[in-house]
């Protein structure tokens, strides 16, 4: 019988001294990576989850392009070129609901209790989840959307750097948003509620924005909101980059504002989510 099979209580006493700062930082990184791996494996084990979560945005692309596209006037740019930046942002926002349900699911099943009783960094459960869902999975779906867009006529009109930067802005904003979703998941705690709660507030934000239509056609009171809200700003920023500045109503300032919004969201919601995670029992 080896040492490990002899049972608890036989192990040598562990070092009583607290690990140094460098070791702790190293542990934090390891913990986050391990948690991210765990969350990514979910997509490998549940290919249908990835499939269906990809079908939905594809449907949106096709429906908007062919159903509404003919009726929506976007001076200076093809509707499909106008649409794709909006679709990209919509995809990462709708996808973020999986962070909400995933975390609520973990909380309801007790696996979070195991994590919390382990000597791991408490932030790693959230950091790993948002890294997997909010960044890596998003990059995958963004790639998929760009491919579908390319098939139906979407083209980057700016430089290669602008194209890459546009993907970077989408990824960054999606990552920031996944922390809001994480907070909602921690607050709702049960997967069914989380499913609904994670979704409803995203809808008006996405549709009352410049994602699919120019805001000029909206009634005055709605336009006032739609013009300044973060989704519009971010979509405009992405649109500026994908169109090389050719799309209507976009400016370089939108890019910076989009990044500022992302940073502001992170600044507010990372601490809130971590705090709520510590509180959630």
């Amino acid at each position: 019988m080896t040492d490990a099979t002899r049972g608890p209580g036989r192990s040598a006493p562990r070092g009583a001294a607290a690990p140094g700062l460098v070791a702790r930082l190293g542990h934090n990184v390891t913990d986050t990576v391990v948690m991210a791996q765990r969350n990514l494996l979910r997509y490998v084990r549940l290919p249908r989850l990835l499939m269906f979560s990809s079908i939905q945005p594809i449907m949106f692309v096709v429906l908007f392009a062919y159903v509404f596209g003919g009726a929506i006037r976007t001076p200076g740019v093809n509707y499909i070129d106008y649409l794709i930046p909006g679709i990209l942002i919509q995809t990462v926002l709708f996808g973020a609901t999986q962070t909400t349900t995933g975390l609520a699911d973990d909380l309801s099943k007790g696996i979070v209790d195991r994590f919390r009783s382990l000597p791991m960094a408490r932030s790693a459960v959230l950091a790993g989840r948002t890294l997997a869902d909010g960044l890596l999975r998003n990059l995958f779906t963004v790639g998929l959307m760009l491919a579908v867009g390319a098939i139906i006529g979407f083209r980057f009109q700016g430089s290669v750097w602008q194209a890459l930067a546009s993907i970077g802005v989408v990824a960054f904003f999606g990552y920031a948003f996944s922390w809001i979703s994480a907070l909602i998941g921690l607050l709702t705690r049960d997967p069914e509620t989380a499913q609904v709660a994670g979704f409803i507030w995203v809808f008006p934000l996405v549709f009352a924005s410049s994602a699919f239509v120019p805001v000029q056609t909206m009634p005055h009171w709605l336009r006032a909101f739609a013009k300044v809200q973060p989704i519009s700003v971010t979509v405009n920023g992405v649109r500026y980059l994908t169109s090389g500045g050719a799309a209507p109503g976009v400016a370089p300032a939108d890019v910076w504002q989009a990044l500022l919004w992302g940073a502001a969201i992170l600044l507010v919601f990372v601490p809130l989510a971590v705090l709520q995670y510590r509180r959630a029992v």
Partner: protein
Amino acid sequence: MSDTAIHAQGVRKSFGSVQALDGVSLDAPRGKVFGLLGPNGAGKTTLVRILTTLLVPDEGEATVLGHDVRTDREALRPRIGLAGQYAAVDENLTGRENLVMVGRLYHLGRREARRRADEVLARFQLEDAAGRTAKTYSGGMRRRLDLAASLVGRPEVLFLDEPTTGLDPRSRRDMWALIKELVSGGATLLLTTQYLEEADVLADRIAVVDHGRVIAEGTSDELKARLARDYVEVGVERPDDLGRAVDALEDVGGEAQVEREALRVSLPAPNGARTLLEAVRRLDAADVGLVDVGLRRPSLDEVFLALTGHEAREDQREDQDGGQDGGQDPGGERNAAHRDVGEGEAERAEVTA
């Protein structure tokens, strides 16, 4: 180091208006199995969560291996293991992946985490299923995997919260065998259970918990010896026989308890068969219509009942409270409860003195 692995003194915790723990004190010795026995809602899980640093107590002090669970969490966590009430495994990971993940989170190297995962898999007879996702596991296998996960870090103190709740009898016995084997390796183990039999089989010491308090503590033999009393049980023909039976049985044994709907009277029989004989004589003389008279030995469940005033298992209690055919008079039961809890406390004082 002291011989006490787990120490709690006056621990209180409330959730809103619910007082989950109402001043729990206990000491669990090193290298032994300490059983926490009580019905659902008694506060067992709350106590385990406090001792494993998942919850902060409102009042009182608690230390595990000398570490304060409030202020010294970082040092404590690497030394403890927890297997909770629900199998806390990731369904989408394979058995091995689950264990390697836990090992990595104990900050073992990749290779070491894999090595330990394989070791515990072998020990828990999960090797064949190691490559399958936990979703495909049976309930018993999931619990084994969960227990295995709690051992990957080689904890010095292991907390098992109702490790067999919801398992079929065979899986339960398998689990018992595994736990016994762990214990023979010198582990300190705190186990919660609502099954008396389980506490009896596994625990060196048992604390009976009810309504957030420890109402009795001792070895299982001590608990049984203090509470095991024979009962005379009398079944009567008609409801109006009950009163006469109670009158007739005055001074025969202990205080009679009446179960009105079941038409039964039972009383403690300090002198066993002699008490029974005396009871029969008196009942005969009083001309009480009898259906059944007998001497009963208390089961373990009754020991529990005597201590807590209600059944050990929630489902049974619900059956009796809800269904008329349960045959218990709720009022009578409650009165009995008060008396017996009082006794339990008195006896506890005796033991600690």
